[in-house]
Every structure is written in structure tokens, then in C-alpha cells.
């Protein structure tokens, strides 16, 4: 089975977020980037498990400049066989999906896996667009994936239950929590990653379809009031008179 996993970097969750250029750009000065958790913990690890069970290969693909190389190296250390970086600045979902589809169209992947979203912009659009551009079926938010021959069975968490989906390869999927467990790179993996191939591919010519007019930080968190569990009257009073919610 030939598997492609889409990987992107995302700021570490402890990052202090700020913006530059009149609030139109994320300020990445001093920011620690990690592999987007949905890509790493779920998509990549499940792809590796399928490869370990059925044979084949796992390639990771990132759209971005050389500042992505550390997250690529980490994904290789976790166990991917090789990496592709398309040397384009990711602007919007369509432009990124187009780059991926252009590369993937004649590679005959059985399975293209991405995360359900990145934890920074939370767009969640790229895998669906890749599927559309490649004319492949797309399953979003899958929390379980099993393969039997060329047929995949997936579970999707839906309101109040689970949806079971079946699809034949090739297809595109976006992974949600639950699909696999985090794998921490071990020293053997880190050393092996040194000599794994990282192919840098020039960008295809395409423009994004959207642009960001500005970013805003959420309002500061309101103060927390702790009410003693033995004193529900105080809670009712606060909700009624202060918060005016009841």
C-alpha cells in the first residue's frame, strides 16, 4: 500500500499569539512550531500502523519553505520512509491543495491521509479540496480506519453516535482524535531520519482564492469565581444578580 500523509507545522499550544502588519499576519518571531497534532498523532501514526501490518510505504508531504524541515525530520523520525516538501508559501487552502494535487496526481497513492484541521487556523479544507482536485472520494473526521484488501472501513463520530463508512482505495481521508495513539520518536528513529530522503519540489503556479483582511485576539478571559459546593444559594444569587443569566 502506497500512503501519502499530509503534514503541516503549527505553533506549540503554549505560544503567545500576536500579529504584525496591521493585524494581517501572524507574528512567528520566537514561536516554537510542532507537527500539527492531528497530522502527527492520528494520520501519520495510523499510516505507519497500516504499513507495518500490510507492507508498502509512507511518504509525508508538506507545502512550505525550509522552516518546515524540523517538523518533517520529526515525522521521518517517527517512521515515515521519505518526505516531499513543495517549496511554496502556503497562502490559502485552495493554493495548498492545488500544490498537493499537482504532485500527487501521477504518484498512484492508495491512500492520502491528512489531519481534520490544523490547530492554528482550523480551516480543515485542504484534504477535501485535494480529493476534489484528484477526483477521489473523501471521508472527513474519521476516528477509526481499518483496511481489508482494497476496502477501508471507517468510523466517524457524529452527533449522538457513530457513522460507519466503507470506501475502496484510492481515497482521501481526514483524521480525527482516536484514530491512533501518539508515538514518541526514539533514538533509533531519530538516527534513521538523518539519511531518509527529503525531496524539495518547486511550486506549481497557482494563486489563492481568499485573503485574510485581519486577525483579532479573543477577549481576555473573565475572572473565575469559586463558590463553595455547600452554598448553592450563593451560586444562584450570583447567576441571577451579577451574571443576569437566570
Amino acid at each position, binding site marked *: 500500500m502506497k500512503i501519502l500523509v499530509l503534514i503541516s507545522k503549527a505553533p506549540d499550544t503554549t505560544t503567545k499569539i500576536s500579529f504584525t502588519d496591521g493585524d494581517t499576519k501572524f507574528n512567528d518571531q520566537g514561536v516554537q512550531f510542532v507537527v500539527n497534532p492531528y497530522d502527527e498523532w492520528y494520520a501519520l501514526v495510523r499510516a505507519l500502523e497500516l504499513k507495518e501490518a500490510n507492507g508498502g510505504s509512507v511518504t509525508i508531504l508538506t507545502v512550505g519553505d525550509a522552516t518546515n524541515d524540523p517538523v518533517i*525530520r*520529526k515525522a521521518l523520525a517517527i517512521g515515515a520512509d521519505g518526505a516531499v516538501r513543495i517549496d511554496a508559501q502556503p497562502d490559502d487552502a485552495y493554493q495548498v491543495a492545488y500544490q498537493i494535487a499537482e504532485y500527487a496526481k501521477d504518484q498512484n497513492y492508495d491512500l492520502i491521509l491528512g489531519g481534520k484541521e490544523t490547530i492554528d487556523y482550523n480551516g480543515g479544507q485542504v484534504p477535501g479540496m485535494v480529493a476534489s482536485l484528484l477526483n477521489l472520494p473523501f471521508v472527513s473526521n474519521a476516528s477509526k480506519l481499518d483496511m481489508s484488501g482494497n476496502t477501508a472501513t471507517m468510523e466517524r463520530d457524529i452527533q449522538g453516535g457513530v457513522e460507519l463508512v466503507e470506501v475502496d482505495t484510492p481515497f482521501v481521508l481526514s483524521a480525527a482524535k482516536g484514530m491512533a495513539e501518539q508515538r514518541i520518536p526514539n533514538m533509533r528513529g531519530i538516527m534513521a531520519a538523518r539519511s531518509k530522503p527529503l525531496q524539495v519540489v518547486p511550486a506549481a503556479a497557482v494563486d489563492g482564492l481568499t485573503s485574510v483582511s485581519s486577525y483579532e485576539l479573543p477577549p481576555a478571559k473573565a475572572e473565575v469565581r469559586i463558590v463553595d459546593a455547600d452554598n448553592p444559594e450563593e451560586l444562584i444569587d450570583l447567576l441571577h444578580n451579577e451574571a443576569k443569566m437566570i
Partner: protein
Amino acid sequence: MATSDRFQAHDFYLMDELLSEEHRLIRESARAWIKKDVSPIIEDYAQRAEFPKQILPGLGEIGAFGPYIPTEYGGSGLDNIAYGLIMQELERCDSGVRSTASVQSSLVMYPIWKYGNEEQRQKYLPKLATGEMMGCFGLTEPDYGSNPGGMITNFKDEGDYYLLNGAKMWISNSPFADIAVVWAKNEAGRIHGLIVERGMEGFSTPETHGKWSLRASATGELVFDNVKVPKANLLPNKSGLGAPLGCLDSARYGIAWGAIGAAMDCYDSAVRYSKERIQFDKPIGAFQLIQKKLAEMLTEITKAQMLTWRLGVLKNEGRATTAQISMAKRNNVEMALNIAREARQIHGGMGITGEYPIMRHMMNLESVVTYEGTHDIHLLILGFDITGIPAFK
């Protein structure tokens, strides 16, 4: 008891920019493993004074055993900065965990690699690198601590084997180690290293109980009562007091990094606590006296980070001297102890409980300031370097 680990590293002078991408990956992976497998259990094991043996394979996997040993012997072939970073992550969690890795790497694998022959390297190093085999290092004796050259443990050439007699004390990992690198005098009074294996007749390893420090690390004695050691177990390529002291240079270097980890953990907890704890209607971090403590802690950590990184570069170039290593070990352990004490005060009463790692670090560091050359002995090493006059006796 604390089972969650909210640690965030502190890098005030952007020292990370001096590290390679691989260094950072090694450190992040070690930290992730620690947070997942060790932090949740360490307080419990320390309180019960037990070594968590189940972490040994994991320590092997993250490369904590012999990171700088060449890959042909099962090591990772990494540089000294990578070694330091791993020690820092381990000691950030617990000095006892770091001690186990230090001993295995610098005091067991290092002498077998540097002073052993090819057969010994092939026989022991790959298993030591995975943690399948564990080792300990016997230098200190009941009557010879700071003055190991006076040791009584000795061996006689009996033709087919060496006959080993004597006793070692304060030996980390001894209660469960499979092998011991033992320093003993031959009939001519010259110090040699011998590999003694568990199961050899007359060899026992009683555990030392009642420690208030390094409680999650096992410490014990090594007792040799007419132990017949095969001649093939003598380390042939170096003898004299310089041989064990060479191992100590490598271990002390790792401790210099490790102590920064313990200091960072105390500081990190103190910063968080001072923002969360409200007294007089304000977070205590709003008071100048608390801010002074925090500012001084961060200053000392940052100075130690710079000193130690530079030492790592010198060590990579083969230029780090014993005296330079002494300075870093001594400075950083004292720095960590002071920070642990200040951080304990910031945590108020909570600081003495197992809810926070502070008191455990503080007690651990009381061993770290004594082993691998006491705080004062390092002054004498520096004093000797400065004046050319040894003041040891």
C-alpha cells in the same frame, strides 16, 4: 501526589538557536517520553524509596544509555551537547533517574569503551545501550570517599584468575546491576578496573536504606569476599587513578547539564504558582519580593545555560579540562540547590508536599552536591588549576 507535568522549558537568551535541529528533536522526544512515562509515577516511587525499573527499556529507547558511544557498539554516536540535553531532561524530572543514566553511560559504558578491549566492548556495550543489562561503578569505599586513591579493595593474580577482596559503598544502581566496574589495587598497589558480574561467588550487593535523597534511585554496597574474577574481565587499556577519574569527568559534565534541568523545574513551578496563588487579593507574583526571587532564579539559570553550552562545545572539540568541568558541576549544582530552596519558599506550605516537585529536587540535590566530587573538592581542583599547588592533603 502530583501526577501531571505542566513543565515548560525556559530559554531567556534564546540558547536554542545554538542547537541543531536534531539536538532539539532529541530533547523534545526525551521530554515527551518523560512526561508520558516517568512524571506520572516518579513522586510515588520517590516517596516509597523504590527505583522504577520499568523505565529502563524506555531510557534505552530515548538514547539515555551511552549517547556518545559509537553506533557499532549500540550507542547513538551523538555529540556531547546531545548527551547533556538528555541528562538535563532526565534530571528535570528527577536526579535519581538521571543518576541511573549517568552511571550507565559515563561510569560503565565509557570505561568499557575507552579502557576495554574489543571483545569486552562487543560483549557488554550493546546490551548496556538498550538497558537489557545494567551496570554500576565501584570507586568509593567506607574509608575512602574524597580520597579514592587510598582504596583498600585489591586483587591478587592467582594464575587462572584474579582474587578480589574488599568493599565499596554508596554505589548507585548496585542492588539491581548485572555488572559492576570495580576499581581495585593489584599487588603492586596500582589501580585497575575489573568487570565483576552478578552471580560470581563471594560477590554481594546489599542495598542502603533510609536515604532522604535520591529515593527513586537504588544505592548499595559491593562486597567482595574472595571473588574469582576471570582474567578476561580486567580493563587492559588504562590503569592508575586517572582511569576512574576520566570516567568522572564525563559523568560530572552530564551532571552540570542535569542540574540545570532540576533548577528549571523548580523555577517553572515557582513561576506558575506565583501567578496562581492569591494572597492579600493579589497573585503573590505581584509582590516585589517574589519577583526578585524569580528574576534572580532566571538570571542564574541563564548564566548556567551559557556556561554549560560553552563547556559542551569545548568537550566536543576535545578541549574541556577537568578544572572547567569542575567549575560547571559545582556552579550548577549550587545554583540548582539555591533555586530549589527559594522555590520552596514561594510555594509556602505546599512546597513541602509531593504535590510539587520542589522538595524532592532539593533533597536529591543534596546527593548531587556531594557525589562526583564534593562541592569543596571541586574548589580544590580549581585551586590546583589556578595556583599549580595541590591542597588536597
